[in-house]
C-alpha cells in the first residue's frame, strides 16, 4: 500500500499466512550468482517509486541506475495491487514493488522467485525488523528486498485541540468534541483502524488482528465508524485535500501520514502528528523479482540500487515514508528519519501493516469465516451513507 489515492489494499490475498500451515511456496529456482547485465529492465512500480526525472527534473534515481549498470529501464505504473498481480502474471516485467497485500499472492502464484539476498550488497543495511516478515518471506527465505514503510498517524491542530490527544479515542469515542472537523482516510481499509481501536478498548470482541474480522467484529467496527461518521467533516484521500483542510481549519483532527504532517507544518499549519499508544495501521513494501525474468542480473542490480542508501533516501523523501536502509538516513535531509521514525523498532512494532482481509481468518481462527475485502467495501459504503 502506498499513497496513490485510495487505491490501497485492493484485491485479495492468496492464501492465509504461515500460521495456518496451508501454504507452501512453489519450488522456484533462486539465482546463485550474477553475470553480465542484460541491457534492459522492465519495472512495475507504484507511481513515485521509480522516478526518472520526468515529473521533476531533480527527482531521478533511474538515470543514475541506467548509467551505472547499462540496464535501460522501462517503467510501468500500476494503480492497485490487483493490477500489479495480474500484470506480473503476464511475465513481461522483471521486478515489481509489491505491497503487503500483493506479495503473498505473487509468492503463492509462483510469479516471483526467492531472492538470494547474498547477491545484494545493500541488503545488509536494511533494518533487521523488516527482514523475514510474514509478507516478504516463506520459511525464512526472503522473496524480496524491503523498500520502505510508514504508519497512519493521528494529526491534530494544536491551536484548536486542547488538551492534546493521546489516543485514537479522540476520533472515535470522543469524536463529538470536534464534531464536523474530524477527518478520516477514505478507504475501506480504514475499517482496520476502527478494529484496532476496538481490539484495545473492547477485548470482549476478541479481535486479535484488525485485518481478520468475523461478521460480528466487522459489525462492531462498522457501528463505531457510523458513530464517527456523524462528526466527520470530510474523508480525505490525497495530500492536498488533507493539508488544505488542516491549514484552513476545516479539519482539526484525524488520521494522517507523516509526509502530510510535515507538509502541513512547513506550510505553516499548527499541527502535530503522533503514533498513539494503541498502535496503528500502516504499510510496508517489498521489491520482488519475477520468476520468469530474462534479465535476472539487471533485476538484482535494480534491487541493489533501489535499497542503496542514495536511492532509498531519495525515494523515501520524495514519497514520504521511512526508508528501509539505515544508511539512507545519513543522506536524507535533517530530521527526516527522525520525523518518520525510521529504524525505530519499537515504533515499527506498533504498526499493523495493511493486509487484504480474506475469508480465512489471518489470526488463525478456523471456527469462523472472516469478512472479505468486498464485504469491507460494501460496509464502507454503508458507513459513509
Amino acid at each position, binding site marked *: 500500500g502506498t499513497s496513490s489515492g485510495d487505491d490501497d489494499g485492493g484485491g485479495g490475498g492468496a492464501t492465509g499466512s504461515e500460521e495456518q500451515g496451508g501454504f507452501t511456496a512453489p519450488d522456484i529456482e533462486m539465482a546463485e550468482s550474477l553475470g553480465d547485465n542484460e541491457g534492459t529492465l522492465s519495472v512495475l512500480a507504484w507511481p513515485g517509486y521509480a522516478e526518472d526525472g520526468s515529473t521533476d527534473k531533480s527527482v531521478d534515481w533511474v538515470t543514475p541506475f541506467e548509467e551505472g549498470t547499462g540496464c535501460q529501464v522501462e517503467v510501468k505504473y500500476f494503480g492497485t495491487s490487483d493490477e500489479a498481480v495480474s500484470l506480473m502474471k503476464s511475465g513481461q516485467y522483471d521486478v515489481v514493488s509489491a505491497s503487503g497485500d500483493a506479495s503473498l499472492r505473487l509468492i503463492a502464484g509462483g510469479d516471483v522467485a526467492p531472492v538470494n539476498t547474498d547477491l545484494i550488497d545493500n541488503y545488509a543495511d536494511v533494518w533487521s525488523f523488516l527482514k523475514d516478515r510474514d509478507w516478504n518471506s516463506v520459511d525464512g527465505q526472503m522473496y524480496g528486498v524491503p523498500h520502505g514503510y510508514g504508519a497512519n498517524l493521528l494529526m491534530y491542530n494544536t491551536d484548536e485541540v486542547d488538551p492534546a490527544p493521546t489516543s485514537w479515542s479522540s476520533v472515535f469515542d470522543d469524536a463529538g468534541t470536534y464534531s464536523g472537523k474530524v477527518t478520516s482516510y477514505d478507504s475501506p481499509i480504514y475499517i482496520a483502524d476502527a478494529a484496532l481501536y476496538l481490539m484495545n478498548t473492547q477485548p470482549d470482541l476478541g479481535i486479535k488482528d484488525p485485518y481478520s474480522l468475523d461478521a460480528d467484529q466487522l459489525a462492531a467496527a462498522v457501528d463505531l465508524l457510523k458513530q464517527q461518521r456523524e462528526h466527520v467533516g470530510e474523508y480525505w484521500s490525497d*495530500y492536498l485535500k488533507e493539508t488544505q483542510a488542516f491549514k484552513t481549519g476545516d479539519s482539526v483532527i484525524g488520521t494522517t501520514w507523516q509526509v502530510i504532517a510535515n507538509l502541513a507544518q512547513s506550510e505553516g499549519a499548527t499541527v502535530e502528528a503522533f503514533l498513539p499508544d494503541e498502535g496503528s495501521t500502516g504499510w510496508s513494501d517489498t521489491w520482488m523479482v519475477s520468476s520468469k525474468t530474462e534479465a535476472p542480473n539487471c533485476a538484482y542490480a535494480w534491487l541493489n540500487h533501489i535499497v542503496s542508501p542514495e536511492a532509498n533516501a531519495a525515494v523515501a523523501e520524495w514519497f514520504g515514508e521511512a526508508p528501509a536502509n539505515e544508511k539512507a538516513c545519513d543522506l536524507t535531509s535533517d530530521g527526516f528519519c527522525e520525523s518518520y521514525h525510521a529504524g525505530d523498532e519499537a515504533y515499527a512494532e506498533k504498526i499493523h501493516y495493511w493486509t487484504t482481509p480474506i475469508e480465512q481468518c489471518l489470526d488463525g481462527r478456523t471456527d469462523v469465516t472472516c469478512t472479505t475485502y468486498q464485504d469491507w467495501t460494501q460496509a464502507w459504503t454503508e458507513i459513509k451513507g
Partner: protein
Amino acid sequence: MTRSVLLAFSALVLLFVYAPLALVVLNSFNTSRTFEWPPPGFTTKWWSAAVDSEGARNAIVVSLEVALVATVIALVLGTMAALALQRFRFFGRDTVSLLIILPIALPGVVTGIALANAFLTMFGIELGMLTLVVSHATFCIVTVFNNAIARLRRLGGNLEEASMDLGAGTFRTFWSVTLPMMRSALLAGALLSFALSFDEIIVTTFTAGQGIQTLPIWIYQNLFRPNQAPVVNVVAAALIVLSIVPIWLSQKLAGTDESVAAAR
C-alpha cells in the same frame, strides 16, 4: 430595460464561470503549495517548474495524441453515420440516433466499466492506448454526428443533387460539395469532441490502464503529490489561455456558416 437585466445577469454568470479560473491562475503564482487564501506571496517558481516538467509535457502529448486520434475516428464514423442516416430511410433511424447519443447520455462511470469489462473479458485486449482511443472515440462520435446531421438537415439534398446533375459521381460530389459544406459543422463537432477527450478523466481512468498518462490522469496523480499541486495549476492556467486559440480559430472558420445559411 429587459436587455440590461439580461446583460447584467449574463455578466454575473460569466463572473461565476471565470472566478474559479481566475483563482487557478492566481494560485499558479501562489507561494503556498496548498493554495492558501489570501496568497501569502507571489512566485513564478511553479511556472519554471512546469516548464521543466517532462511528465506534464509527456502527458500533454499523450492527451493530444489520444484526443487527435479519437477525434479523427469520431469524425470519420460520425460523418458516415450522419450521412447514412440522412440518406437512407431505414426502419431503425430513431433507434440509431438514440444509440449514438447513448455513450454520452450514460454516465461516464458506466461507460468506463462497461468498456473496460468488454475489453478485458470479451476481447481479451490489455488496456492501453488502443482501448483508450476506442473508448474516447465512442463517446466523441456523438458530437460530430450531431453537428453533421444538423448541418445535413439544413442543407437538404439539393446541392448534392445539383452536383450529380452536373455530372459528378457520388465520390466527387462528396468531395467537392458535401464535405466543403459540412466543413464548419464538422470543425465545431471535432473541436468539442477534442475538448471532451482532452479533459476526460472518468472513462480514461477505467480504460487506459496505468501505462498511459493523459493530462487529466497526470493531474490527478500529481494532485496527490505534495509538491506538484501548484505545477498542476500552472498547466491548467496555461491550457486555459492556450485553448482560446483553437476555439477562436474555429469560430472564425465557422463564420462561413452564416453565408451557408444565407445562400439558401
